[in-house]
């Protein structure tokens, strides 16, 4: 009996480990980055004008959400997919030229999100510029890809706080 109980316990433990490993593996790079960036995000000032920001990002500022989606796609791909890089660069250049992106970002009502989107914009541009060598070392000592991961995670966390549906 004791052997049986011990075996069941061992089986449950083993299963739990396997499940945990599977769960961990399925966690996206974005989720991991968001977990890592939670403390930073908590340091941001409270959301001041959530309704206006939501309205902006679902209206005139909607292209910024596409930029954010592109950034997530790049970080999930690890910046190593040359074809995806070329496609994203072409797509952004035609649908959201850089000067328009800057203009749209300047009009984001939430101060913190505005700054974060700008950080994501420059990080995404740097990653696309570094393609297909996505591991080029940035001047600040990190990699351009790592900077994009951090920036995209912080944007995503702020969008969560504001209540922007994706």
């Amino acid at each position, binding site marked *: 009996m004791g052997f049986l109980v011990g075996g069941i316990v061992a089986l449950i433990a083993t299963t739990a480990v396997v499940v945990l490993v599977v769960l961990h593996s399925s966690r996206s790079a974005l989720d991991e980055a968001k977990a890592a960036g939670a403390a930073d995000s908590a340091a941001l*000032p409270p959301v001041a004008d959530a309704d206006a920001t939501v309205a902006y990002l679902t209206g005139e500022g909607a292209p910024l959400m596409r930029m954010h989606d592109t950034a997530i796609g790049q970080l999930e791909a690890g910046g190593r997919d040359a074809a995806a890089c070329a496609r994203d660069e072409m797509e952004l250049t035609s649908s959201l030229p850089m000067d328009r992106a800057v203009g749209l970002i300047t009009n984001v009502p939430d101060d913190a999100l505005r700054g974060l989107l700008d950080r994501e914009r420059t990080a995404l541009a740097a990653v696309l*510029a570094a393609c297909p060598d996505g591991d080029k070392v940035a001047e600040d000592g990190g990699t351009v890809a790592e900077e994009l991961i951090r920036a995209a995670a912080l944007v995503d966390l702020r969008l969560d706080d504001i209540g922007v549906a994706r």
Partner: protein
Amino acid sequence: MKARAVIVLTCALLAPQLLGPQAAAAPGDRAWLALGDSFSSGEGIPGTTTVRAPDGADCARANGFIDQIRPSEAKAYAVRAYEAVRAEYGFGSLDFVACTGAKAGDVETQIEEAEDKAGRTSWDIVSLSFGGNDLGEGDGGFGEIIMGCLDAWGWGRTAVRRPGSSIVLPPAGGCDITYEEAAERIDALVEQKLPRLYKRVAGLVRPGGDVIVVGYPQIFEEVNRWDFWRRNVLRNCEGIRAKDIPLLRRISDYLNIKIAEAVVRADAQLAQRGVRFHYVDATAALYEPENSDERHAVCSQHPWINGLTVGARSGDFRYQRTFHPNTSGHEATGAAVAALFGKVIRFDDVPVQLHQLTTGYAAVGPSGIPAGPETGATSASTNFWVGCEGLPAETYFGLGGAYHSVSGELVLAPFTPPDLMIDVRLLGDGRELFSTTQRAGQHRPFSIDVGGVQNLVLRAQAIVGVCNSAPVGYGVATEAVVS
């Protein structure tokens, strides 16, 4: 040698080009001229009027008026300072021609516009800021340098190659100018453009008047003073990354230091004409005073400068308002400019013109009729006779030991025979202080120490060539003043 005629006429009638501006206006008639670039025009203030300058430039002007009749609360610093001192110091007019995007070389266009509008050619106060727009490769000036730090040239590979430039940036981006490059442009500005500009502006000022040069504020707050979340999470200030801020601040510091030095030099050179230059250090005196937490750059607690967002918030979507002083900034600058009055601006430093101290003369020649420096009585020039019969002509001035220096520039009147060479000497109480030979077309500046001198003699004699008949003396000491 042939004697000259002795018809006494004033220099004002015969040689107006030799005259300086008229003496300072009486209270009530004083005039203020507001020159400068967008930091003087009030570009950053919502509600500016947008006018087309004569040269086609798009000028946003916060001149206190919506049009010729309706007043406006959009007032740049010059308007605020003018309104603050108008009654006490007797100003009757402000001519506001500062314009967005103006470079040092555009001052001529602004002067022409002011002269056309105001119907005058001289003022008692000239305020200005110039230089920032001379620093860019193109027309953007310092703003172009800032925008070059925004990483906004394009996505992907286009982001690292600036349009129209061979500069290739690292993928991580950043400003596309180095400190050394910026300093080189600033040095060129200060050495080549500002001295010419300041001299030109001084020529617009009546003796006893003043030029106020306003420096530029630091645009961005120091990174270590940013909010924690901005410094550590956003890592940028209105699109400019934290790592680029020190470079921009250093460039701005250097620009202001060099402008301040140029102003000091202009003051030293032009004070003898009764025009004083004053520098208002916008950063150290207003936006970032030492030992104070009251700081006002972008990303400080209480910014007086617009960030990138101003286009949306000002209601008129005028992107040029970005990174320019707002209403609070101009209020503070206007107050600082107004505070100069009564302290360093008093309108009482009108220099004494040399001819005002004339006590006599010794004319020579067959006519024996003297004519002397009273011919320049209405100008800043002192006219003197030249002895043409083998003896010098002398003009006497009574200094009474009350002055330290005599300065001016020796020239010969336009009608002087070209082959004439004249020996000119200045003697103080019998001791020779200065001597030179002068030909037509030569300009010879002089500045002589006359400390303790009671009586000054100006002695002039033709030593080569033949004199003609002339209505006034050949000799002219332009802008000759004692101080």
